[in-house]
């Protein structure tokens, strides 16, 4: 038995602002975060509320952020998490109170994917499933917990984005329609705020407690849309664009880009891609501005060249080279994976490209110094 301090996010409707309460609990080797919170509610503060139901990661209700990571509290052992454990509600969903978020916006989008929710049967005794079907990760693995929406950097800022869970559901319809219309599902994701908004951060797949891999599903949808024969014109499914509802206020906005807690490498790739992209646009404008000197004739330009060979300029060139290399190499990954190539090994691909970046940066800077000093 060890003693753990829980820092629990608290908020009730009508409160001016949320705060954190601290509770001390004891944890055995198997004690889960959910059991610890139940004990707090039973023994210390009966006003604490949270969602839970099945206690074995099957219902998906006890999603929350523990030390910044989206998890299902019922299968998260407390003992592994250090002496102080921070527990907060999911992000990008309207807060009800304490650790409870409102699932209405989740289902408003999720149900539009049109996926038949439960199979009538799973490989019935004596049945002979179609070749390949037994190897599918069934989407019904989705617990509808909403962890992926909480982790996604695009959901954080774009209230119209369909989001990973619903698009994984749409991909299930395409994979195995079971009476639903795959063309309808494809048409639904083929929109500005659908599969084309995803930036392949793969945070959804990282936090998914049941290996649904929504990121890979979105990449597969794109691949299908790019390769598939052009879909006949058809009416858009009603309400295909979710209204910018109260959910909008619940989203975190741009500050989500700069919150490091609990995030994996794909998230950083996304943020760095955005930051380097904006910086490169700024540089483009600057570059064109400097080139105006060319229009002024030889004297102005050759004066600038002298300045450009100063050490400060060279250092800035190094930064520029890094920005270009990162944006270019990660961009290659996003383009490739976004078309379904290498989605299964996106992380290995990322690190391989980063290795290329380091080599190219070193060679590039060395060559730059050599060229300038060789002059």
């Amino acid at each position, binding site marked *: 038995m060890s003693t753990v301090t829980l820092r629990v996010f608290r908020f009730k409707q009508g409160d001016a602002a949320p705060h954190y309460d601290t509770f001390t609990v004891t944890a055995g080797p198997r004690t889960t975060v959910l059991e610890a919170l139940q004990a707090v509610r039973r023994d210390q503060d009966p006003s604490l509320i949270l969602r839970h139901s099945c206690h074995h990661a099957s219902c998906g209700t006890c999603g929350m952020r523990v030390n910044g990571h989206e998890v299902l509290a019922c299968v998260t052992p407390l003992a592994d998490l250090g002496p102080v454990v921070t527990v907060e509600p999911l992000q990008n969903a309207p807060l009800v*109170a304490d650790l409870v978020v409102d699932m209405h916006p989740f289902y408003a989008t999720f149900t539009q994917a049109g996926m038949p929710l439960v199979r009538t049967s799973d490989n019935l005794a004596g049945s002979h499933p179609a070749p390949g079907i037994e190897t599918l990760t069934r989407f019904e693995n989705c617990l509808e917990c909403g962890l992926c929406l909480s982790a996604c950097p695009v959901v954080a800022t774009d209230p119209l984005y369909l989001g990973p869970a619903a698009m994984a559901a749409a991909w299930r319809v395409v994979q195995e329609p079971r009476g639903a219309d795959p063309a309808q599902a494809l048409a639904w994701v083929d929109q500005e705020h659908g599969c084309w908004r995803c930036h392949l951060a793969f945070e959804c797949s990282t936090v998914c407690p049941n290996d649904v891999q929504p990121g890979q599903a979105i990449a597969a949808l794109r691949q299908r849309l790019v390769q598939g024969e052009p879909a006949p014109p058809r009416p858009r499914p009603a309400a295909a664009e979710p209204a910018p509802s109260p959910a909008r206020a619940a989203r975190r906005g741009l500050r989500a880009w700069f919150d490091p807690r609990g995030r994996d490498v794909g998230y950083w790739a996304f943020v760095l891609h955005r930051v380097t992209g904006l910086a490169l646009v700024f540089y483009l404008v600057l570059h064109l501005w400097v080139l105006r000197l060319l229009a002024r004739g030889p004297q102005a330009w050759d004066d600038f060249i002298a300045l450009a060979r100063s050490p400060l300029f060279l250092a800035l060139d190094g930064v520029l080279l890094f920005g270009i290399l990162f944006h270019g190499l990660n961009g290659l990954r996003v383009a490739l994976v976004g078309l379904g190539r290498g989605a299964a090994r996106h992380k290995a691909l990322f690190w391989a490209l980063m290795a290329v970046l380091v080599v190219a940066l070193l060679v590039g800077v060395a060559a730059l110094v050599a060229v300038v000093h060789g002059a």
Partner: protein
Amino acid sequence: MSAYHVVIIGGGATGAALAHDLTLRGVQVTLVERGEVTSGTTGRHHGLLHSGARYAVKDPESARECIQENTILRRIAPGSFELNDGLFVAITDEDLAYYDDFMEGCAATGIPTRTLSREEALRLEPNLNPDLKLAVQVPDGTMDAMRLPLRFLATAKHNGARILPFHRVTGLRFHGRTVVGVQGRDLVRNRDFTLDADLVVNAAGPWAEQIARMADVDVPVVPSPGVLVAVYGRWTNMVINRLHRAGDGDIVVPQRTLSVIGTSSWVVDDPDHLDVPEEHIRLMYEKGAEMIPALAHAPMRAAWAAARPLVGSRQAQSGRELSRTFKVFDHAEEGVEGFVTIVGGKATTARAMAEVTADLVVRKLGLDAPCRTREVVLLPHTAYYA
């Protein structure tokens, strides 16, 4: 819609089905639940749609309820079940000796059976213990412990019922000795609430006794926890039961890509204090592996306990001796009007429990409204959030 207002305490399977039933009969319903709906016993059961075969020998009343409800639920909640059937497997000669009693019990309670040879059973389920003697196929199934009750709640809500999770009842309101409402704490806004009611139904499951005490009446409910263990891997497609008298660790329910092994049984005083004893986890592995050897090495996803709300004497030792049937109490018999308690039963029989309870409720209210829940097809669970 009548002017009568009924408050249901408890958002488990029973309260959910009752809210649906009463709403269909034209009664205004408010359901209050101290936590999230299905956060008590309901959400934590092993996900078995009972055929009743498990109780066919020792508890025929419960068995009959199960097979009847099994048939009705398949009709009113299409898509909520895997129609994967169940097998009762005889591993030892002792199990085999139970076969005749078992078949007789199933026949007497109307549960269809099909006896499979060892070879037939192993062809259907290759992961079964190859030493098995024979197996009996019954119409068990797998359900989602949370999403079926959510369908009752969703349908009730869309027919006008008010569902209030995170509303903890702290007391009943009286006029003389007649219950006229409830009071408690709204935990979303952290303020007190009161609700007037023409009648209050206590559907708090293993917590029913705590609620009954608020009216100074007693209900004989025994919170009887059982440990369940979910392991990774879908080792069988069918629900596997041991062909013997219901005991510890004798059922394995496949759920999605997991297998849930259950259960043990003991009794406690407080359903909020549920341990998960290490030796019970070991027992589940051990007993489960007797039917499906691969379970012995299957990695564990979770182990948890759920408290059954059994009806019976508090002198009960393990809970195994108590029936799985249910009982409705009209507390007018103890001098408290306007207050009804429903306890016992199982998730599979929740609709039947609601029907019997609602029959009593409308009789007490003086309404003439027949039950319609056998026919009305339920909305999908997602409609609860729509």
